[in-house]
């Protein structure tokens, strides 16, 4: 009997649509039944980014900027609507239009928010995946000091939102305020990995995080885990035929090696120390998984800044270390397997490893209320990388950030 080539489609998959539908229906219901509808408070706000950049070399595997200057990579405009129905209930939606056609425009957030008391916050709907310190405001460049958060940590292939539920509980203890968040949900959509679009489908994902603030110091730790049902690069042929070929040759162990499904964990530690005119902050992340064709990643950045009037000068060091699993080509060297062996070997050789470290010098000038001009100059060293050779590169990015 032939082995199944891929895991069964996720039974959890309908969760996405069901949750969004539930949120939309609930919102409509709230609007209809709320006796204070006329008093429901609607607040419209938004943000924008106009960012241009250029790099010394074209290196499509690791960054969005090349020899030709472009404004496409990170420029966007967004509108956020917050409806406050009562002290406890509100609905938030965020629409984003991006110049980058490799990333989705449209609905970024849509969630119902319930605050039964001051220390509890429950959200249902399409939410930001809380992987990083700045996950919630990744598109709001005005809310942080860089133009582009360190790519070693804030890798583009980390999907940014999920459909599910999140519960945040806060505790006070003397000088400390601690916030604990737990979430569960699913994700189905496209992400950019190594400058290529990948369609991902997760059975489920979930996690929790703890953030404690004591005076000017905030420390955050997070652990996320999930089960990937499938991943398929859009511009590459499916490996299904190859797997069928392996199956016909009774090489089931190799099928497992070429599958893009299984579990993953994403761990994060972060800190931030904010004083009157300076700050120091950093994050460490680790991405572990079962996928042999993709590297596991450990990343870190440290950043410090000094504010003088409306000008902020900052420096950031980022580092990323990828590790590819040992994947020997165990196919026989006989003539029968020659072609298959060659194809399999090319799969092994084409695996991408993005070891790098970088140094960024940046300036932010808040020249007007709710507007800032920024410049970042990054020097990157790609230490050991397949299939690209080791190289150095410099990237200059500048642009405007605003909120309204």
């Amino acid at each position, binding site marked *: 009997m032939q082995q199944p080539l891929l895991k069964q489609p996720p039974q959890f998959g309908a969760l996405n649509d069901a949750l969004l539908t539930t949120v939309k229906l609930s919102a409509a219901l709230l609007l209809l039944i709320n006796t204070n509808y006329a008093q429901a408070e609607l607040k419209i706000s938004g943000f924008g980014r106009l960012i241009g950049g250029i790099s010394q070399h074209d290196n499509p595997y690791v960054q969005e900027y090349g020899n030709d200057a472009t404004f496409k990579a990170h420029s966007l405009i967004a509108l956020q609507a917050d409806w406050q129905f009562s002290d406890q209930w509100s609905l938030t939606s965020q629409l984003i239009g991006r110049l980058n056609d490799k990333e989705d425009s449209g609905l970024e957030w849509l969630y119902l*928010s319930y605050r039964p008391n*001051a*220390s509890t916050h429950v959200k249902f709907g399409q939410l930001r995946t809380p992987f990083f310190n700045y996950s*919630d405001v990744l598109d709001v460049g005005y809310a942080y000091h860089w133009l582009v958060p360190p790519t070693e940590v804030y890798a583009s292939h980390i999907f940014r939102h999920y459909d599910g539920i999140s519960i945040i509980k*806060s505790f*006070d203890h003397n000088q400390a*305020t601690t916030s604990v968040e737990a979430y569960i949900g699913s994700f189905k959509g496209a992400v950019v990995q190594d400058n290529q679009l990948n369609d991902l489908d997760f059975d489920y994902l979930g996690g929790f995080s703890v953030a404690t603030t004591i005076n000017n110091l905030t420390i955050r730790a997070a652990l996320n885990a999930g089960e990937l049902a499938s991943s398929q690069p859009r511009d590459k042929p499916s490996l299904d035929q190859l797997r069928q070929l392996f199956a016909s040759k009774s090489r089931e162990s190799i099928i497992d090696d070429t599958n893009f499904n299984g579990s993953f964990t994403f761990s994060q530690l972060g800190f931030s120390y904010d004083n009157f005119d300076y700050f120091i902050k950093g994050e460490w992340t680790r991405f572990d998984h079962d996928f042999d064709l993709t590297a596991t990643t450990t990343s870190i950045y440290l950043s410090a800044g000094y504010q003088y009037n*409306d000008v902020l000068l900052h420096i950031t060091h980022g580092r990323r270390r990828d590790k590819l699993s040992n994947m020997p080509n165990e196919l026989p060297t006989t003539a029968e397997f020659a072609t298959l062996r060659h194809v399999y070997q090319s799969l092994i050789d084409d695996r991408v490893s993005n070891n790098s470290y970088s140094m960024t010098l940046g300036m932010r000038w808040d020249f007007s209320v709710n507007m800032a001009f920024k410049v970042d100059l990054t020097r990157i060293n790609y230490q050991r990388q397949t299939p690209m050779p080791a190289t150095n590169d410099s990237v200059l990015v500048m642009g405007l950030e605003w909120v309204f």
Partner: protein
Amino acid sequence: MTHLRYITLTFALLFWPIAIFAQHLSEEDILVVTSVQSADLSLLQIKKTYLGMNSSGLANKHAVTLPHGNKTRQLFHVKVIGLSEARVRTFWAQMQFSGRGKSPVELPTVALVIEYLITHPNSIGYLPATTLLPQQLKVIYPVHLY
């Protein structure tokens, strides 16, 4: 003569705290105020309210602020929040667009802040120390510039 001495002494005992308070308040000092119906807040709780930190002791509290460029606002950010004006605005953008909290309600004048605080008992605000406070409001934290 004895009566006059007693009257003087009584006045001195009754009003010396006000006299000292008035002596230490300058035009550049600030009063953090709220409705008389609201509970008092510590300096830390005031800071948390303005930075939108979730806190179990701040049920539905929200902050009111004066506009950008206002001198009292600048002093409040330095002395109470402990961050420069530009970085406070960065924090507020994080609050607004992360869903973690609401940025403070910004009102253009001191008179409108007073009116808002009276009509929204769960709000807190700050005013120049020379402001004549209506009886519906109370000082929860005086901020001295020096």
